[in-house]
């Protein structure tokens, strides 16, 4: 019986690990003004494992990223790559699948690497649709200081799938 329970735990955990991930990122980039800037950022991002599609727009000031299934990328890695290219990463719109949890009276969505705390700006209606367990949402990740990035973010949810 214990073995069966252990097996179930392993399967559930394994399933969670492979599902909890960022699926899409539209990363706002400030300070990028020229084609070689965009080229450098695009090339730098393409070197990261787990990206399926990278498109950089100078006019929008954004990097549009589609992440592969079972990727292990974090938003922090993306923003650090932006900084490495000499620019400033600002807000990001993300689609994320993660584990919705309550911790000390606050709500958050966890992926394998990062925690996205639900921002107060998220509407009550959207918040009420989130149930403990795996959820998929779209939202705006609020800008953090480039030089002080952690694995914790504030997420203003705009859509619950």
């Amino acid at each position, binding site marked *: 019986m214990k073995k069966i329970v252990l097996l179930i735990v392993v399967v559930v955990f394994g399933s969670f690990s492979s599902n909890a991930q960022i699926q899409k990122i539209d990363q*706002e*980039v*400030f*300070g*990028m*003004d*020229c*084609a*070689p*800037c*965009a*080229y*450098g*950022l*695009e090339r*730098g991002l393409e070197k990261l494992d787990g990206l399926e599609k990278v498109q*950089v*727009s*100078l*006019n*929008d*000031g954004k990097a549009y990223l589609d992440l592969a299934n079972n990727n292990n990328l974090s938003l922090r890695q993306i923003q650090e790559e932006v*900084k*490495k*290219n*000499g*620019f*400033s990463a600002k807000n990001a719109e993300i689609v994320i699948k993660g584990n919705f949890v309550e911790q000390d009276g606050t709500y958050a969505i966890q992926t394998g690497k990062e925690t996205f705390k639900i921002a107060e700006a998220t509407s009550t209606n959207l918040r009420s649709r989130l149930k403990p367990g795996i959820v998929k949402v779209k939202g705006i990740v609020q800008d953090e200081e480039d030089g002080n990035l952690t694995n914790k973010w504030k997420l203003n949810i705009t859509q619950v799938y």
Partner: protein
Amino acid sequence: MKTYFLILGIGLLTLYQVEAQGHGPIYGLQTPTLAKGGINMSAAGMSIATEDDASYMLRYTFFYGITEDLQVTLTTPTVIERLENAPRTRGNSMMPSNGDIEAALWYRFFSNAFGVGKRFESTAILGVSAPTEDVRGQVNVGNSIHGAISTGYASRTWYAWLGGGYQYYFEKDNQQLGDLPYASMVIGYRPDVFMGDYPKPDWRVFIESLVEFPGDNKYTGQQNFTDERSKKVLVGPSFLGLYGAWGISFGALFPVVQDLTPKAIKENYRVSINLSYWL
């Protein structure tokens, strides 16, 4: 014949895909960006024409981004035709105009990216150089140091840079090339027609101005050295085209003021072309 030589040299460089400099102006000081670990290679052809003659030179420059705020450059010349009495000038914002090999550090000590495509930034430059010839304009050439500071604004439409620098040649065998304080100002603009999004090519145009105060050469035991300086103001257009990892820029400067000491040489124009590739 010399012109053909220059064109041939530039053509060969293009053929062999060797490339050139930052994404700003040609002559004015700028604040180039390069990613951490990024590499930029450039090749430039430049000419300075005086009343009597003209110089032609090719120059290759290697840029490496130690961090996103600190880059190192190494530039070497191939002098095709020297001027007998070369004007003291940098000749290009990122490299000497004469036959010097120069290594430099570019430190972006301030950067504020405050909008889409917009940023203010300031860069300090410190370089050391060694000459490839023993004598320049009948004066022994020593090593030199160069320091400069530049601050600028970049956006998708407008650009502006303001900078100033100083180059000092050390004495060699009782002779010393004159020093060079200088300042530059650049205004840039990208018309709407070139506002196509990456990866489409984009072009920008600059109006560049350069003010130089070159000192006269010194000789030990010289009786009549007055420590006077020439004063030059040069203005001209330049153009920069960027496509993916490639960049090409070209431009010219024309003197509008030349208040020269008796030994200084009068200039007619300077022209330059750069090809760049970012690895």
